[in-house]
């Protein structure tokens, strides 16, 4: 699927040894043919299961279960952050990705069993920020010093399941959790969420911003629904797409339309109920901004498009 844009892929593997389960992570390379022909014949590529090439393991035996692995969003793809139990590990890939060296690490101290559940690497600030979720708390980290930069205590009433950075607004991030809520935060003011959505009737497992139109937010939940929301008011285009100056020809027609568009409301665009069981992953396509996929427990992968009307509404 398009979500993986790198030729190198990260994967989890569970190693059962001595009746003890340890979640590990490894770096894989996708076959070249799949990468080149993925758009032309997706059916073929899925039917002829081609093998991935294992490049290296991220050695986490000293740190516990891997919860999350994420690439540096920009750059040459040589850096990986992984979260293992209560450690945050920064890896450096060397020798054409055949070796992963632990560059630096930090760990979460505190009472009780603190475990990271999820993490995201911010595409802003020159890729120096990582946000993590552990229990009900959201934390921001600086990858240069591996120190905590902000902390949102009790971001959710219950466990925080996932978070995502707004690709266009550097301080905005979305989080979701077991309290069925999706919350939008401004990391400069962590006392109050900017906005809260409460559309799901069970734990929300995933939240994803559209890569280019950040008003489109996708959430997947274990109530087996996928919800596409339009969060115009807190997006980078709160007044809709700016009209191009070349559109002088049909200006007369355009103006009333613009007027009509003025009151933009945050709303749920669509609820997708194709899944029969809990949805555990949703992702936007990295190629086509109007395409997204969701994966549920029963093994069903559903690919949907943003409704045409909305697409035109956003574009025009």
């Amino acid at each position, binding site marked *: 699927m398009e979500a993986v844009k790198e030729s190198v892929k990260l994967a989890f593997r*569970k190693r059962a040894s001595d009746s*003890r389960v340890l979640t590990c992570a490894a770096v894989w390379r996708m076959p070249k043919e799949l990468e080149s022909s993925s758009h032309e014949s997706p059916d073929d590529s899925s039917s002829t299961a081609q093998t991935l090439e294992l490049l290296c393991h991220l050695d986490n035996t000293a740190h516990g279960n891997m919860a999350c692995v994420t690439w540096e969003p920009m750059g040459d793809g040589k850096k990986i952050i992984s979260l293992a139990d209560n450690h945050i590990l920064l890896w450096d890939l060397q020798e054409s990705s055949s070796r992963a060296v632990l560059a630096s690490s930090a760990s979460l101290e505190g009472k009780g069993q603190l475990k990271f559940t999820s993490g995201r690497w911010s595409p802003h600030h020159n890729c120096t920020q990582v946000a993590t979720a552990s229990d009900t708390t959201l934390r921001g980290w600086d990858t240069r010093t591996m120190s905590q930069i902000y902390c949102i205590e*009790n971001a959710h009433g*219950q466990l925080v399941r996932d978070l995502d950075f707004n690709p266009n607004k550097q301080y905005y991030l979305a989080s979701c959790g077991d*309290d069925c809520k999706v919350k939008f935060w401004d990391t400069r003011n962590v006392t109050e969420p900017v906005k809260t959505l409460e559309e799901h*009737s069970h734990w929300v497992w995933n939240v994803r911003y559209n890569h280019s139109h950040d008003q489109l937010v996708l959430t997947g939940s274990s109530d087996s629904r996928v919800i596409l929301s339009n969060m115009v008011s807190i997006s980078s285009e709160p007044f809709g797409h700016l009209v191009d100056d070349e559109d002088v020809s049909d200006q007369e027609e355009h103006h009333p339309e613009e007027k009509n568009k003025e009151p933009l409301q945050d709303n749920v665009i669509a609820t997708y109920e194709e899944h*029969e069981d*809990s949805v555990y992953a949703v992702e936007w396509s990295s190629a086509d901004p109007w395409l997204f996929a969701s994966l549920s*427990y029963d*093994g069903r992968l559903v690919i949907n498009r943003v409704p045409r009307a909305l697409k035109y509404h956003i574009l025009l």
Partner: protein
Amino acid sequence: MAAVAAGPSPGAGPGDSPEGPEAEAPERRRKAHGMLKLYYGLSEGEAAGRPAGSEALDPTDLNGAHFDPEVYLDKLRRECPLAQLMDSETDMVRQIRALDSDMQTLVYENYNKFISATDTIRKMKNDFRKMEDEMDRLATNMAVITDFSARISATLQDRHERITKLAGVHALLRKLQFLFELPSRLTKCVELGAYGEAVRYQGRARAVLQQYQHLPSFRAIQDDCQVITARLAQQLRQRFREGGSGAPEQAECVELLLALGEPAEELCEEFLAHARGRLEEELKSLAAELGPSPPAPDVLEFTDRGGSGFVGGLCQVATAYQELFAAQGPAGSEKLSTFARELGGRYFALVEQRLAQEQGGSDNSLLVRALDRFHRRLQAPGALLAGARLAEAATKIVERVARERLGHHLHGLQVAFLGCLTDVRQALAAPRLAGKEGPGLAELLANVASSILSHIKASLAAVHLFTAKEVSFSNKPYFRGEFCSQGVREGLIVGFIRSMCQTAQSFCDSPGEKGGATPPALLLLLSRLCLDYETATISYILTLTDEQFLGQDQSPVTPVSALCAEAREMARRLLTHYVKVQGLVISQMLRKSVETRDWLSTLEPRNVRAVMKRVVEDTTAIDVQVGLLYEEGVRKAQSSDSSKRTFSVYSSSRQQGRYAPSYTPSAPMDTNLLSNIQKLFSERIDVFSPVEFNKVSVLTGIIKISLKTLLECVRLRTFGRFGLQQVQVDCHFLQLYLWRFVADEELVHLLLDEVVASAALRCPDPVPMEPSVVEVICERG
């Protein structure tokens, strides 16, 4: 014929007889006759003495006035025979004779009278002659008297003049004496302190002195007087300034000074300044009573003192001022108004300060009485000083106090409500220490409801005092309209119900979403309370309020239905929150139990895990708790076999039918297929869904949340063979005990099936336990 001619005359009546003997010519007689007739006011016909008949004009009537002998004779001769003529002649002759004799007698009789009358006239003539002489004599005497009198007057003339002059001189001298004595007299008066007297003397003398001041002697007197007057004025002023002698005496002083012709403008200023000094004293003493320390006298006494001291003083000043300086016109009254307004303002400030101290108090009746007195007291100066608007200001103060009072009561109600909640918390916490689970939740609810209701009623009664008939300000428009509808109904009652809802809401929104902050029983109780309010209490309270406060205000009020809707919504949210909190408690228990256990290396299950028993126990406890406050609710009629025994058979057969194939590792596709097919026919489960107001719905919600958590947790773990079997046992156990709580037992089956299926999928070595063994273990546990 003469007899005939004379005939009518005697026929005319005896009244004519005296004229008869005169024997005058018929012309004359007729004339005299006519004159007499005229005199007697009779008409021609009536003069005959007979009533005027139809034959009155008959010329043949012998006795008629218009008798004509010729016509009569003609008639006789023409009509009568000879014999009758003869008869009539004799008859006539006889009549004539009778008449003659009559006449003779009359003449004789009247002749005597005539003679005596003549005698009388003669005598009279003599008498008059005598009288005339005497009259002449009288006239001469009178002339003499007049003459004498004139002479006397002439003689006395100059003496009289002299006397008059002397009298004038005497009066003048007395006046002069008064003037000369004036200085000493004034001095004496001033010494004696009889200022009024002195001023009166001065006033009398002033004009004269003014007139004759060109004469040196008068001038001296005037100068003396002026000196004394000045002294007098000075003394008066001094007395006035000393001021201790009270308003009436001061007023007197001012009056005297005015009479002395002192400038009114200045006096009026000074008068007001003095009055101000006095009233400021009053205010100061009032302010002293306020003090920083808690005020000793109660508010009633305070307003009383203020009323009699300050307001009374102000009244006196105003009355005196208006009497004294009435001549000052609008400017003067304006000055007074300004004065009154300023001092009144300060008085109001003090009163408000004092009333503010009273705000915390609970005794409304005292406050209302104090306000009443305060308001009533100010009506008098209000009428006197319309320009100062004291009465309006007083009404404003009373209104403000009433408003603040409402606010205070609202606050009191809120505090009482919170107090009730604290009591409930304590009551909920206490028995738990003794080991009993939330007994008497219904009683607690009843206690809370009744205590709040009694608080509301008490507040209403207290506030009602403001509108009592005997209170002087109750008929002000504010108290008749806005106070009732906006103040009491909207502000107090509706405000309280709203704040109650808000308080309840805050329990839902509390940051302690993990359920630690609020005991769930309290949520349940509040929910029930709100629901009760929705069904009955709100409409009851509002009806009560509307009855007690019949406001004439037309402003819109919150309808009962809106409030009820709010309360119902609140009840629903509280109950939903309760479900979430309780669900979370059980979820956490299940989650911990799944997450902390090492499922790969677990031993073969011998027992149901303790945590499952705990879940069932807790659910039962919740069931009991909810049952105390909510009705049973509708259960979906599933099947008739609701006894435990038949159920277990049913469920085990179900398990065999459904699980057995899926646990065979040889057919992993079947698992997915089967579960997918099964899901196609089952409805989607909304886990956190709104609940209805009944026990079954609440319990269903809680169990749904718990089981869904179990499912999700199981999916995150990896199970060994015995781990799977343990899950199987646990799920069967839950199935045995949880079905009875929910509306649709199919739901429990579905979720538990899903749990076991998920565990099987997460198991590298899925060998299920024999259903019979599972059953045995469960029944043993």
